[in-house]
C-alpha cells in the first residue's frame, strides 16, 4: 500500500469541485514505482552532479506516496537543475527564468486536484524569482518547492548567485563576492512559510523522507537542497556539505513546531548546517481563501454549463 499524500483540498462543495485528497492513492489502481517516472531522455548533467540524486529522490517520493505520473505537475524555471522535467515521465512545464512559482500558482488554482512540484535553482528561486518566493511563502499555496541550491549560476558557467558565500571568487566576482548571501530558510520563515526544510543531495535516503513530508504538507513547503555543482563550485563540494550537515531531528528536544527553536535553526549556516524539517505549522492555504473557487470549483472542472456561452466559445476557440 502506498503511503498517503496530502490533499489538494481547495474547492470542496462547489459544482465540479476538486476531490479532497487529490494526488496520492492513485485511484486505488496499480502500484506506482520509481520506474514509472523514467523518461526517454538521458540527463545532460555533468558526471557526479548532485541533480541526479534529486531526480531519483523525486521519483522515489512520488512512488512511495502512490502518486502516478498523470497526477503530478512538475514546473521548473531555467538552469541546469530546471532541465529536470525533461528527465522524468510526468506532466511538466519549463517556464522562463525565475517564474515557476507564479506559473505554479496559476496552475494550482486552475487544477487543485494535481500534486504540484516546483523545481528550480538558487538563482532562479532566490535571485530573479526572489519576489515570487517571498509572496508564495506568504500566500501558502499548496505546492512543494524543491530548490537545487548549488550556490552558483551553473548553466551559464559559473557566476556567483544569491546564495554564494561572501568572498567566493567567480567570473563575475574576481575579487570575491562582496555581498552577504541570502539564507533561504530564514527568509522563508520571515515571509511566513509553513514548512521549511533542508536536504543534502549526498544523503538521498534522508532527502526522500524530507520530500515525502513536504509533499504531504497542506500548504507551501520549501525543500532547499544542498546540491553540489561538481564543475563550477569547487568550494561547496560534497565534502564541504557532508562535514557540516547534521540531522536536526536527532538533536535533543527537537520540535519543528516550536517557532523559537525554528528561528534558531533556520538561521544556522556555517560550521554546522541543520538538515531535515526545520519548521512546520498549519495555516489555511491560499486556495481555501479564494472564494471564487469555493463558488464555482476549479477551472479544470468547468464544463459548458458553468460558463456563459460566449465565454465558452472564446475558450474553445483559443485552445483548439
Amino acid at each position: 500500500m502506498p503511503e498517503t499524500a496530502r490533499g489538494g483540498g481547495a474547492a470542496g462543495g462547489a459544482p465540479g469541485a476538486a476531490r479532497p485528497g487529490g494526488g496520492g492513492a492513485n485511484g486505488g489502481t496499480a502500484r506506482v514505482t520509481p520506474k514509472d517516472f523514467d523518461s526517454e531522455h538521458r540527463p545532460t548533467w555533468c558526471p557526479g552532479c548532485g541533480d541526479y540524486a534529486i531526480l531519483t529522490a523525486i521519483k522515489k517520493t512520488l512512488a512511495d506516496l502512490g502518486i502516478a505520473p498523470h497526477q503530478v505537475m512538475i514546473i521548473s524555471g531555467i538552469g541546469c537543475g530546471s532541465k529536470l522535467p525533461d528527465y522524468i515521465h510526468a506532466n511538466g512545464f519549463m517556464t522562463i527564468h525565475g517564474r515557476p512559482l507564479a506559473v505554479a500558482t496559476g496552475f494550482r488554482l486552475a487544477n487543485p486536484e494535481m500534486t504540484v512540484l516546483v523545481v528550480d535553482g538558487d538563482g532562479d528561486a532566490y535571485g530573479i524569482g526572489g519576489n515570487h518566493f517571498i509572496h508564495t511563502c506568504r500566500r501558502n499555496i499548496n505546492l512543494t518547492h524543491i530548490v537545487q541550491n548549488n550556490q552558483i549560476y551553473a548553466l551559464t558557467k559559473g557566476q556567483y548567485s544569491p546564495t554564494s558565500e561572501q568572498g567566493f571568487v567567480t567570473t563575475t566576482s574576481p575579487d570575491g563576492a562582496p555581498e552577504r548571501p541570502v539564507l533561504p530558510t530564514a527568509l522563508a520563515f520571515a515571509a511566513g512559510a509553513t514548512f521549511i526544510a533542508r536536504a543534502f543531495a549526498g544523503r538521498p535516503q534522508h532527502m526522500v523522507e524530507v520530500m515525502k513530508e513536504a509533499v504531504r504538507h497542506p500548504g507551501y513547503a520549501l525543500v532547499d537542497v544542498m546540491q553540489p555543482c561538481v564543475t563550477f563550485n569547487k568550494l561547496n563540494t560534497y565534502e564541504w556539505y557532508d562535514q557540516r550537515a547534521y540531522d536536526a531531528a536527532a538533536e535533543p528536544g527537537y520540535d519543528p513546531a516550536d517557532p523559537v527553536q525554528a528561528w534558531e535553526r533556520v538561521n544556522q549556516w556555517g560550521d554546522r548546517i541543520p538538515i531535515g524539517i526545520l519548521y512546520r505549522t498549519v495555516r489555511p492555504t491560499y486556495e481555501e481563501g479564494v472564494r471564487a473557487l469555493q463558488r464555482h470549483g476549479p477551472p479544470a472542472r468547468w464544463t459548458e454549463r458553468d460558463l456563459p456561452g460566449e465565454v465558452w466559445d472564446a475558450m474553445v476557440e483559443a485552445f483548439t
Partner: protein
Amino acid sequence: MERGRVLEATEVYARVREVAGHGSDEEAAGVVRRVLRSLARSVPGHLCGRLAQGLPAELAVELEDACGGDPLVEAQGFIGPLVNVMDVEAGYDQSLGGLDLSAVYADDDASRWVRAVFAVLKEAVDAPTRDEIERHLPGEVAGWWREAGGEGA
C-alpha cells in the same frame, strides 16, 4: 588475486598513482580516501568492517563515518565527490549543441580512478566478501569493481 599482508598506506597510494596516472602521491591519496568514503555510503556496515581489517589504520578510518550504506546512492553520487575535486573548467553538456570545447570527460577519469582504487581494495578481502560488496555497489560502479584488477585495472 589472493589476500596478502596489509599494505602500508604509502604503498596503496603508489599503486593507485601508477595505474590511474596521478601526478603525485598526495593526489592519489585524496582519490583513495574519497573512493573509500563513497564505498562506505554504498555498502552495509559489516562489509565495511571486513574491508577495514585488510587496510592500514589511516585508510580504515575513512570507512567509519559514513558506514551503513544508503541504498539510494547511485553511480553519479558515488563519483560526485571525486569529480568535485577534478581540475576541470567545464563538464560536457550535450544540450549546448555538442561537446564543449573545453570539456573533459570527467566520467572517464572518474571511472579510471575508481577502478585503480578498487584493484587494491579487492586484494584486502576474500572472494565471498568481494562478491557481496559488488552486489551493493550502484549501477556501473559494480561493473568497475568486478573488472578492477583485471587487464588494465
